[in-house]
Each structure stands twice: as structure tokens, then as C-alpha cells.
């Protein structure tokens, strides 16, 4: 097991463009951290029930649930689906002891009102709950303490806005407890206790968004963690072979001979098929390499995860978790 890249991070925020597998990476990261013996909380905030789908469990409530108890020596993974309405009611109850009055607010449509008037308020409520879980050991006696929290956050295009809770509220709520809440949350998010990881695939659009996202995060002083390059194609063929395949110059006779030697009948159809598959792969790899150069130039640690051809089941998740550990994330 290699040394971890972010030894001080307690809160790992995972973002990524749609289709890059950010929720899968967040889940794998939670398992990776747990494998180091940490007790981990995996949170989601978009109401998608992505965690339940990945781990194939019933939809998660607004309540921390034991999700995975891995093998001996590893920590437990808990899961929590945070929605703004529940977070607001809990918040009011905690600070104002509203009790049944809270229910009345709900009936009047106030909860919906307060959580829809501006995404800023929603975001403070969502990150506020994460903050509460992260700081729990001090204030709430007897509550569960987490060594690490993994947040499956909104997509890259919205991440800076989501985490920039202070700024976003400034125009709206200039005073009041939400403002105060935003400030303490902001302190955590701007500290080395937080690391924001961006998941991408090696394609033009997601890489471009990742670069934009990193620039935005840096602009507002939020701690960028790693770029996780996901769904990486197999790296079997070397550059010379790929060039030959892309240019249609691969040695067909040598391939036929090798296939024969390996006990596979080299029919013309099979040879054509394999060479075509190879050409397609070589072209894709060329694009990947261009994008990899862009990613490397971002000045952030890069962690790569392979495409699992059979899909990501529990076994696959553990495989990805192991890779994350080897690469120093988790």
C-alpha cells in the first residue's frame, strides 16, 4: 500500500461530468478509505439514490445506515442521502427547538419556499449537514464519529458554485443564521481537511470541463485534490503497434502465424476483424493520449482507473478501491 496523497483530508468531495462515473468513484473511494481501517460516511446530495443503486440496497433515507462491513481490519462504511428539506427541518430543530412547529412550516410550504428561493440556501443546507457529520465528535456526545467522509457532489459544471456557499449567499442573505452557518462550513471547505477530486474520462468535453472546474475552484481558494481518470481503455498495445494498426500497416501474415501458434484458426474474417478492432482502438488511444497530455498539464495528481468490461459489480468496486489505494488516493 503506497502513501496517501492527501494525508490531512477528512472530507473527500467527488465531482465529475455526467457519464464519467463520479458516483462509482465516490463509492470506490469510500471502500478504499475503509480498507485502511477508517470509519467512513458516504453521502449523496442530488436525490438520485445513486448509492443504493451501486450497492444494490433499498433506497436510503435521511439517516445514516451501515452500508458495508468489509473484512477484518477494515472500517465500516455508512451511507446517507441528504435532501435539503430534511436538512432544514433538522437544522431548525437543532437551533430553535421548533419541534411540532417545524411540521407546521412544512404544511405552509415554507420548507419548500426556503429551499427553492435560491440554490445558495439549498447548498448551505446540504453542505451544512456534511459539516455537522464531520465535526460531530466534539459537540454531540455519543454520536458516531467518522474518520473520513466521501461526498458524491453535484457535477463539475456546478461544483464551484455548490461549494462556494459563502459567496453565493452574499447577495441574498446578508445576515441571519444561514449566513453564520455558511461561514463555518466555508472554513472547513477551504481548509486542508478537504480535498476536491474531479472525475473525468479522456475525451475532449469532460477534460475541458475538468480544466475549467479546477480553475474555478482555485480562483475561490478551494483545495483541489486529484483528477481521477476513469474508464481507461486497456493499455495492451505499444505505440509502434498502434501506429501500424492505425495506418493499416500491421503485419497480417505474422498475426496469422501467431494466432495459429496459439491454437486459433486464422480465418480471413477473424484477421480482418481483429485488425479492424485494433485500428479502432489505436485511434481512440491517440485521442486519449492527447487528452492525457492536457490532464497532466493541469498540475494536479492524476489517478487512473480502468474500464471494467463486465461492468462494476461489488467485485469490480473492490477492484477499483484497490487501485485507488495503490495510486495513493484513499
Amino acid at each position, binding site marked *: 500500500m503506497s502513501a496517501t496523497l492527501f494525508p490531512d483530508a477528512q472530507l473527500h468531495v467527488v465531482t465529475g461530468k455526467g457519464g464519467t462515473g463520479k458516483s462509482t468513484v465516490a463509492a470506490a473511494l469510500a471502500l478504499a478509505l475503509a480498507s485502511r481501517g477508517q470509519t467512513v460516511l458516504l453521502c449523496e446530495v442530488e436525490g438520485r439514490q445513486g448509492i443504493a443503486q451501486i450497492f444494490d440496497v433499498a433506497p436510503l433515507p435521511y439517516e445514516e445506515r451501515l452500508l458495508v462491513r468489509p473484512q477484518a481490519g477494515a472500517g465500516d462504511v455508512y451511507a446517507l442521502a441528504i435532501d435539503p428539506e430534511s436538512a432544514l427541518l433538522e437544522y431548525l430543530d437543532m437551533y430553535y427547538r421548533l419541534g411540532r412547529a417545524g411540521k407546521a412550516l412544512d404544511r405552509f410550504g*415554507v420548507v419548500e419556499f426556503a429551499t427553492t428561493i435560491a*440554490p445558495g440556501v439549498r447548498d448551505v443546507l446540504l453542505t451544512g449537514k456534511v459539516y455537522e457529520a464531520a465535526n460531530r465528535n466534539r459537540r454531540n456526545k455519543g454520536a458516531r464519529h467518522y474518520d473520513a467522509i466521501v461526498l458524491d457532489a453535484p457535477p463539475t459544471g456546478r461544483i464551484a458554485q455548490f461549494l462556494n456557499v459563502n459567496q453565493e449567499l452574499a447577495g*441574498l442573505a446578508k445576515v441571519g443564521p444561514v449566513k453564520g452557518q455558511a461561514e463555518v462550513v466555508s472554513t472547513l471547505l477551504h481548509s486542508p481537511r478537504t480535498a476536491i477530486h474531479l472525475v473525468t474520462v479522456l475525451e475532449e468535453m469532460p477534460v475541458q470541463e475538468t480544466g475549467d472546474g479546477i480553475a474555478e475552484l482555485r480562483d475561490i481558494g478551494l483545495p483541489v485534490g486529484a483528477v481521477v481518470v476513469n474508464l481507461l481503455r486497456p493499455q495492451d498495445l505499444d505505440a509502434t503497434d498502434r501506429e501500424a494498426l492505425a495506418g493499416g500497416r500491421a503485419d497480417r501474415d505474422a*498475426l496469422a502465424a*501467431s494466432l495459429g501458434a*496459439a491454437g486459433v484458426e486464422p480465418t480471413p474474417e477473424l484477421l480482418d476483424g481483429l485488425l479492424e478492432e485494433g485500428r479502432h482502438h489505436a485511434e481512440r488511444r491517440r485521442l486519449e493520449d492527447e487528452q492525457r497530455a492536457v490532464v497532466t498539464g493541469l498540475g494536479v495528481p492524476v489517478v487512473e482507473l480502468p474500464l471494467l468490461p463486465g461492468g462494476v459489480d461489488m467485485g469490480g468496486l473492490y477492484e477499483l478501491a484497490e487501485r485507488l489505494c495503490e495510486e495513493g488516493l484513499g
Partner: protein
Amino acid sequence: MRHTRAVPRVGPLVAGEESAEVLDVDALLDDPDRHVLVCCGSGGVGKTTTSAALALRAAERGRKVCVLTIDPARRLAQALGIERLDNTPRPVEGLETQSGGSLDAMMLDMKRTFDEVVQSQASPEKAAQILANPFYVAVSSSFAGTQEYMAMEKLGQLDAEARRTGRYDLIVVDTPPSRSALDFLDAPERLSSFLDGRFMRLLLAPAKGPARFMTAGVGLVTGAVTKIIGAQVLQDVKAFVAAFDTLFGGFRTRAQRTYELLQDPRTAFVVVAAPEPDALREAAYFVERLRAEQMPLAGLVVNRASPAPVESLSAGAATAAAERLRGEGDALAAGLLRLHADRVTLVARERRLTGRFATSHPDVPTAVLPALSTDVHDLAGLRRIGELLSSQRA
């Protein structure tokens, strides 16, 4: 090709192993009674590219097309000539126009569209008052769902213009990259019911009518809201609601009209997905929702399917052969065999996933688009996609 209403089916037992009907893209694009195509699906599945490719193909087959995109990749926007966000459709250059068609493209400017709606509905002084309100600024630039709502609003405007002037006979619209593919259907309703909501009303006139009896409750409620968001925000909201009051009705009517346009047989929905569990799950929700809302579904486009590998060699046999070649020196052969094994596994999984969709939705015509080995950011690439979409084998 007329849409036939879906027949309700009973449970999964009805389904056997069946493959879906093939989506006849050209028939859809050529249908003179079809004037609006809505492309929807979850984020990252290639909606924008698909809608641009459909629009281009329709135009080059002789239709007068306008494509409304939401957030295209930079190079695609350049290819369409729409890097400038000015909310006006502009002709796309490089079109093949022998068949008499035309193609305009535009990128949605959410805030400007909202401003224009306000300006068209209110007197100039009132409009100015609303546009300057901090609460309006927050809602129009970042209210969750505003983008969805404004995409539908813009579609309504374009459609009205097309009917009036005959400038377009087909509008292709891309939908925003929502967390959920369904958001844009709900957005108009959500926004108008929010602006029209009970609490908003209470804020305006807490002591009139039946609300009088709830004054104590209202005090508690406004008190709590003040605690949460601060008095200043509440003041802004009140000022906004007061100024906006006469516009509420207009917003409701507009939302209703958009909804009716989406239900009209002049419209067709194309659901876009990738052969991944999440994207196909969203697509299934969407198909069911369209059915429930009686909105006309043309079919499903599965983007980025891995190209089918040569069939005569199984994944297991290829892996075994690659193992036998280990250390024999022919890295190319071993590499190609391992690639082939992965490809066979991947394609089998994708087919299983799309097959599962077809089994539970056998009446949804489907087109499967193989992943291209290069990115698409010019008209030639879009044309290629259009060809692939139209040459689906039955």
C-alpha cells in the same frame, strides 16, 4: 410515421426475449406533419450531438430547420457558428442545400429569455422594477429549473414564430443536462407553482380573506423564514411578488401552452441514452413518463455502443490464446486477442442492458449508434452520425 399510443402491458411476464422495432429516422425527419423534435436523456449521453446531427440531416433532406442547443462543446458550437450567446438563430454555414432545406442554430441564453418574457408581459416601468430586484436576479440566473423552463419557453417562441412566418417547418430542441432527464417536463409547473404558491400569497396579503384566521400561524411562519434567510431577503421577495403579481397569470398560461405543444402530435420525443445502467434507467423512466403524460414518443437512440467485434472468437478462447502467446514475443497478436476478449465482454454487457430495456419496452423503436473512434466537432462528423442513425438494420 404516425405515433400509435402505447398499449398498457401487464407486468414483466408479457415480455419474452425480443428485440425492439428499429427507429426509422428518415421517416421521422421527413414527416411533414412533424414540426418539433425534442431530444432528451440524462447528462453525458450525447444529446447535443444527436440533436445537431438530426437537425442537419433533416435540413439536408429538404426541411427548414432550427436547432436549439443548450450547452454545446466549444468546437461543436464553432462548427455550427453559434459561439456567440445572443439568443438569435443564425444560419449554419457549409450546408448542402440542393434539396432546398435550410438550417439555423442557436444557443439558449437562459437569463435573457427570462428577461424577455418579463418585458413582454409587463409595462416598461414594472419590467424595469422586476429586472432590478435582487430576488429576481437570483431566480432568473440560478433557480433550479430555470434553464429547463426557459428551454421550453424558447421552444414555444420559436414554434409560434415558425407558424406565423413559415421560416421553419421543423424545430429540433436539445434539453438541459439535468441531473434527471425529467426535470424539464416539471420545470414550468414547478416554477409557476412556486411563484404562485400559498406562502407567496400569504406574504403578500396575510390579513385578507380566509388567511386572516391563520394570522398567528403566519407570524410564526414569517418569523421562522426571517430567521433562516434574514429580513432583507424577505423584503426583496415581497417587493418581487408585489411587482410580479399581475404576471403570474401570464406565466401559468405560457407554461400550459408549452405543455400542450409537447403533447401535440406535431411533436415527437427522441430519448437518448448510452448503453449504461444509469442512462438506460433514466431512459426507461422517461419513456414511462411520456406515456403517462400522453406525449408522443418517436423512439430511443442508444449512443456510443461499442462496435461489434468479429463473432467467431469467444472472449474465453481469446483470453486463453493470449495467455498461450505470453512470452512468445508477438505482443501485437497477444494484445489484439486481449482487446478482443474485453470488447466481446463489453458488447455482451451492453447488449444485455439494451436488451433488458427492449424487453420491458418492446414498443419503443430503437436505433443503436456505434461509438466513433474520433470526436465529432464538424458538419462532416454530424453528417456521418446522421447516416449511421438512418442505416439501422432491422
